């Protein structure tokens, strides 16, 4: 079994590296020599989305039973998205679960994830807080997602107001990441965020 998986992954790595998307620097895969079971992927945020300008790193674990079972993929770069856990980076995407098919490849997975960034599915969420914000206060969701892209994924839309609020809470003695998560979950209401952090 492992032979099938290793052979397939080698071919798929070549496929990714020779793809148009890789040449345009939109997707990328890195792997340690002689070990195809743990890979590092990277996708860029699609244009005209809050993720534009960001580069998102992914951890890809290839099971022994690949390609009969899907690769396990999660975001290493923190991201604010209804279908991706803002805490763990776990992804809710059907093709990575029961809709996986042996004909799919690493390249199609990376492209599907890019498509997921462009087109979220708030009715099938992984992160309920983000999904609620996405549906109830879409502008707030976009502002937060852009902010996360800038802070964690190298995006370039600095938002002084939000930075200031994070700083305000950090000065009270909280971790920056916790402060940002609390603020993001409370629609950037400083008092509410502090209340969440204290409880």
């Amino acid at each position, binding site marked *: 079994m492992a032979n099938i998986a290793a052979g*397939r992954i080698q071919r798929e790595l070549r496929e990714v590296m020779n793809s148009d998307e890789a040449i345009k620097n939109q997707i990328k895969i890195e792997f340690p020599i002689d070990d195809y079971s743990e890979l590092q992927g990277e996708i860029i945020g699609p244009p005209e989305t809050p993720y534009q300008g960001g580069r998102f790193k992914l951890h890809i674990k290839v099971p022994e039973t690949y390609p*009969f079972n899907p690769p396990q993929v999660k975001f290493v770069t923190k991201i604010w998205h209804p279908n991706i856990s803002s805490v763990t980076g776990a992804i809710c995407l059907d093709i990575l679960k029961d809709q*996986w*098919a042996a*004909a799919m490849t690493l390249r199609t997975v990376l492209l599907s994830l890019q498509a997921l960034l462009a087109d979220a599915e708030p009715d099938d969420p*992984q992160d*309920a807080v983000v999904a*609620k914000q996405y549906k109830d206060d879409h502008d707030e969701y976009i502002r937060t997602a852009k902010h996360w892209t800038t802070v964690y994924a190298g995006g370039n839309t600095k938002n002084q107001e939000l930075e200031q609020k994070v700083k305000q809470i950090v000065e009270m003695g909280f971790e920056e990441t916790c402060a940002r998560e609390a603020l993001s979950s409370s629609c950037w209401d400083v008092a509410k965020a502090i209340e969440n952090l204290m409880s």
Partner: protein
Amino acid sequence: MRSISLRVAVLRASAQQAQFVFVFVCYYVIYEVLLCPSNMDRVLISVKLIQSQKLSKCAENATVMTVHINPSQNGGELRSEVARLSGQSPADIRLVFAGKLIDDVQIMEDLRICENTMIHAVPAQRIQCHSDGPKTIKDEGVKPQPVHVLMESRIIDEDQRSPETPDVDLASSLHPSFYVYCKSHCRSVQPGKLRVCCQTCKDNAFIVKEDPVCWDDVILSNRISGSCLVPGCQGQKAEFFFKCSSHASSVNDQFTVLPLVKTNTRRVICITCADILTSVLVFPCSASHVMCLDCFRQYCRLCLDERRFIQSPELGYTLPCPAGCEDSLIKDTHHFLVLGKEQYARYKRFGTEEYLLSEGGVLCPSPGCGAGILPESDGESRVECLQEEGFGCGFVFCRNCHEAYHEGECGQRIEEPHGQRGSGSEVDMERERRARWESEESKRTIGETSKPCPNCKVPVERNGGCMHMICSRTQCKYEWCWICGIEWNMGCLEDHWFGAGFLL
């Protein structure tokens, strides 16, 4: 010199023929040893002589003799040789192979006549009398049809029927072939041969009136007619069967044809490993996805281990195309013979269990038992695993929670009276606990991290995400709520989708 001893052995050494045999032996010694240095290229075939009614009254008296042929030899030359060996005139016999007469100009190699092939020599008058008959062969009945038509994998599925076989890659040496699972000898998938016999007397001295063009023609009976050449038999229906090409077969050998396995003449890559292999399985999906046999075996094994086979009421326990295509279930479950004897037995057991469960049955939960029980459908929760004819263990359990039978509600812990039975013996309680297959700790862990699926009772672990659970058993897929333990509904969605206290 092997060939000569064999040849002598098959010629009947009757007193009248002794001299005849001697002449032949001398002739062959001179011919083969001195004049024919390329003996290596020759192959040994068997020829079954069907005697005319005058000489012999029943087909059982037919003689089988072995003949060395050169693959480049033609039908006429073989006929002459068989006639010589059997002491007949070439004009008196006709050769029949795989349901067809062999034409004098046909080359052995083209007919795929190879080592161990069996052909039939029948009296020419028998053919004549059949071709004269109005009901058997048409007017041109004696005119030989190309035999290879029957041997090649020209039989294609009804829906893919095409006039010719454009998929044959002439540049490659790949011959289309049937594939069989050779049960008794090779215990693996092997190229197979399609052969035909008379439905009435089962003898292969039979010529078909028309070629089979689809699998149904071959698999179903009474589709193709022809005429039996065995004296005294009036059989007019063909019966097709398959043999393994890899060895000479005996009566007891068992071969199962695998219609989805094909020679990869189109050189399609395997959907799993992306290699191009000679023998492949073509899934019955609209895209006809291709998988090499090695990957198919691994796919079956994995799906067996993970219980991913699907119990179909019409087809049985089977698998779809791994690309997730619709309507792609394998119809002939004999293809799972590729799992090998041991795993195929496991496949059959799992299939039986799933069938039983789908019919409302239960499996005895006692470790090591697993007997299938079909309880009365009266809602009675007490089920006894009856000990009958070597089956069953006597365990009495609750149909709802699969624990030992109890009065009242399920889920209340019942202390097992381990080590406290009787009064005479003392049991080291600590040692007894450690010797249990499932320790108390692991049971506790399973109890804490998992909950039984409300539908099939299989313990399901929740490792994150929302409260909307989908049972991971392929046959179940029941959607339920982790908190309420009932079918997932709008109330759960609105009230506690992501856990109590969180409203979306």
